């Protein structure tokens, strides 16, 4: 890192970016290797050491007290007191500092505004101001744009430029190519915990995309050509909001046929999660329809959707997929516990559950000491196998797998992939959502690329990955256009996401 440089750290989810930065900020201890600041090795025992060494960090999830004012949050941890032993908080001084810093770097924040009233973009600005008041030279921004609307992102980039002009160095962690090209001076790409390349911002998007998703570990999946049958899942004009009431899925049309794998590729956070959650009935459908073999299933409860023959591997297994305190056997019946043979009326049938668990554990090669072991004691790969085993152990019409192999060891990846293909071959419609391009290419018979809540293109699996990379970055090349069946024009940053950011500027003025 050099003074006044913006260094982008690029990599997929789970590539190790955040871990690296947490080490740099003193939150984790390195197992080996060392950190050099101004040529000297640095031993960081905690964040306060890091702040002392001039390193500041803005976390992806803000570390702010929502009911405190901006000034109070900024002085938190470095409270100025006056009045000797009485120890009055010197709010005036804190306020002055806030004003000073925000003027110096052109970061407008009202020191008296209460955090919870502020929009996310401004909260982030408060975090930056907080770091700057601690006199840092190096600022780490951990996926700062993940939570921002496009407008807020633009503002953030402006702020970063002015910080750079003031001689601060910035490490900018992201997986969005556009932003990197717009702002970074130097780009380091990390993949599976290793630096796989350094690039200049002049590098083309597909070069970066290729580096990011990697091509050296190409996982090949043996499979016969698909024999697509009748459409099983039909999605038309689907509109879904995310948790912050911001449009996440904006008019998606999709069809998945029996006996084929539709891969949904795209950089994380372009609406894939919300799309499948809406199909599963976990998220309200605002407009459009979802049909399963002709039946409208939008508005159904999750249980009814599951009962209709939909298998679902959720994206985050530890949050949505498993109950860690429950045993392997219990997790294997988590969504069929009340159906025969596992439940009759109000009673559970422990014998049936245990027998089925034994069978599944063998069939899906789940490495566990016993079926009664709590699932939290298993490795990530085996936990994922438990979910896959559960979902594939009942007759399905549609199988939706989101990030089916995230954080899973290579052996388990191959096994899970082969199970997915096996399910396809018995005539189930399969939808695989993954941010690992290799995975999508390996599994899918057709690939739909999502970008900003829309399907920007649907291509075949033999499409050059550069082309898919471009689509993932929001660019539809001419070639892709020709192949697209129902392509949405992808050059629309001006229109995309604009309904989302309404409250941003307005409440900023109020505050």
């Amino acid at each position, binding site marked *: 890192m050099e003074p006044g440089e913006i260094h982008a750290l690029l990599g997929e989810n789970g590539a190790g970016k955040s871990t690296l930065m947490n080490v740099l900020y003193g939150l984790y201890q390195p197992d080996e290797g060392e950190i050099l600041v101004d040529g000297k090795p640095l031993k960081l025992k905690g964040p306060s050491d890091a702040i002392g060494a001039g390193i500041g960090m803005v976390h992806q999830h803000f570390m702010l007290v929502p009911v405190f004012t901006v000034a109070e949050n900024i002085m938190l941890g470095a409270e100025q007191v006056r009045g000797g032993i009485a120890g009055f908080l010197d709010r005036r001084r804190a306020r002055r500092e806030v004003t000073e810093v925000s003027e110096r770097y052109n970061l407008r924040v009202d020191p008296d505004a209460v955090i919870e009233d502020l929009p996310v973009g401004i909260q982030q600005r408060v975090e930056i101001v907080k770091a700057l008041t601690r006199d840092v030279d190096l600022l780490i921004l951990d996926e700062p744009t993940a939570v921002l609307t496009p407008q807020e992102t633009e503002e953030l980039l402006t702020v970063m430029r002015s910080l750079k002009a003031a001689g601060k160095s910035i490490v900018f962690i992201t997986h969005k190519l556009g932003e990197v090209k717009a702002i970074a001076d130097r780009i380091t790409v990390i993949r599976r915990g290793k630096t796989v390349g350094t690039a200049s911002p002049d590098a083309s998007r597909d070069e970066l995309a290729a580096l990011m998703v990697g091509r050296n570990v190409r996982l090949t999946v043996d499979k016969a050509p698909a024999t697509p049958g009748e459409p099983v899942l039909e999605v038309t004009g689907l509109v879904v909001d995310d948790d912050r009431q911001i449009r996440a899925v904006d008019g998606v049309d999709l069809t998945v046929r029996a006996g084929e794998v539709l891969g949904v590729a795209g950089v994380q956070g372009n609406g894939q999660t919300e799309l499948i959650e809406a199909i599963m009935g976990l998220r309200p459908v605002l407009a459009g329809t979802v049909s399963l073999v002709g039946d409208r299933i939008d508005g159904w*409860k999750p249980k009814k959707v*599951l009962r209709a023959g939909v298998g679902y591997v959720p994206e985050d297994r530890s949050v949505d997929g498993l109950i860690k*305190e429950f045993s392997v056997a219990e997790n294997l019946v988590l969504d069929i516990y009340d159906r025969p043979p596992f439940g009759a009326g109000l009673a*559970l049938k422990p014998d049936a559950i245990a027998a089925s668990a034994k069978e599944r554990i063998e069939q899906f090669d789940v*490495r566990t000491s016993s079926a009664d*072991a709590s699932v939290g*004691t298993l*490795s*990530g790969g085996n936990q994922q196998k438990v979910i896959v085993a559960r979902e594939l152990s009942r007759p399905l019409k549609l199988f939706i797998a989101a990030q089916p192999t995230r954080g899973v060891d290579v052996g388990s990846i191959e096994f899970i992939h082969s199970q997915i293909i096996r399910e396809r071959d018995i005539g189930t419609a399969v939808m695989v959502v993954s941010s690992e391009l290799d995975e999508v290419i390996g599994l899918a018979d057709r690939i739909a690329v999502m970008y900003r809540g829309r399907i920007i293109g649907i291509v075949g699996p033999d499409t050059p990955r550069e082309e898919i990379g471009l689509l993932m970055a929001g660019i539809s090349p001419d070639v892709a256009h020709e192949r697209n069946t129902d392509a949405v024009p992808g050059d629309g940053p001006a229109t995309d996401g604009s309904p989302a950011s309404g409250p941003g500027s307005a409440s900023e003025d109020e505050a």
Partner: protein
Amino acid sequence: MTNPPTPQSGSPDKEPVSEAQAAQNALGNTERAEVATKPGGSASTPEPEQKPSLGRLFMDNLWAANTFTVTLLSLVLAIVVGAVLMIISDPAVLSTYSYITSRPSDAITSSWTLVSEAYANLFKGSVFDPEAFSGWLNGTGSWQAVLAPISETLTYAAPLVFTGLSVALAFRGGLFNIGAQGQATIGVIMAALAGFLLPLPPGLHLLVAVLAGALGGAIWGFIPGILKARAGAHEVINTIMLNYVATYFLTWLIVQNGVQDPNRTDAISKAVDTSAQLPRLLGDNLRVHAGILLAVLATWAVAWLLNRSTLGFELRAVGANPDAARTAGISVTRTYILIMVFAGILAGLGGSNMVLGSTASALTPLVVAQIGFDGILVALLGRVKPWGVLLAALLFGALQAGGNRMQSYSGISLELVTVLQALIVIFIAAPALVKAIFQLRAARAARLQTSLAKGW
């Protein structure tokens, strides 16, 4: 213990949330390894699923969780601190400490006499009185006198089993039911009203009165349940507030026409008809009544519900991970409502015990005593497991019963019992403290978590 490293503990991509969890994992593995080695070479023969009996569950608790040791040590610590308090609060004994350097034997003897007699009376009043036993053998005493301590213990324990189960059940579903007191209060009101207003034949009358109590509790549990499910209102706040509503409703109701005893001017209601009272188990001289049998039945029912029913599966799933439960198609809101209704039913039954049993036969403002709040302690002490709750309630019942005798024979205030109860719970809630005092091994203590610390 010779445990080969299990494959799980070495996997690089395991994601232990914390050190504690990692230790827990490691511990879990070693334990399972032990279990696995037990059957010897016959591991291939599938072991039939054993029906968990009371004894088996007790042994499981003893073996699987080190919680038993900590519970026991907490008891010991509480008794030690209680002894110190007795000494401090007794001026005669305390005065011997002023000349302890010259005659230490005085201080030690008098302290020992005081403390040992007090705890002996606690024991005699709650479990077994050797003098009564020898009296019975000599023919000077009756067998009732021998069973009197146990009878008292069971009488005090019965309502606590219900309220303890109420809190424990809700907690397993991820809800903190502070409202057992209010639910018991509404339960006691409904049971008493049914008990003296309805002219029903014996048997049926009792059944109706008990069910009325359960219904009252169910209503009072349903309110915070639906508020939580539909409006997201925190159940802790709402149940606390409903406790007040219930208490003052009872105070108001007692002095209304038709409820108040016409022969009395103070706040007491008519007495419950004898046809609606729970039968005494050991004759009229001993207070133990059928409530304790109902309590055991309820414990079994809750244990079955939690571990062997689809509803219990949903309840535990929602309690452990509502997100995963929802994703698996379980209706979290419906489960929250059901949990609170069931918790209310249990607390309401506990309330019914207070007026249909032998503790009191009429409503007074204090008729429910503290059973709802004590239920929280009982649930915590019982580690929110049904049979654990039963044992904890028996302990609390014994402390109550023994405390009475301790007060009349040793002159130790009954409040000391309350202090003892509080101390036990404090030590249990702070396993790290007990661990430090007794130098328990870290790996074992790592899996001890404060049972009720979650949910805030």
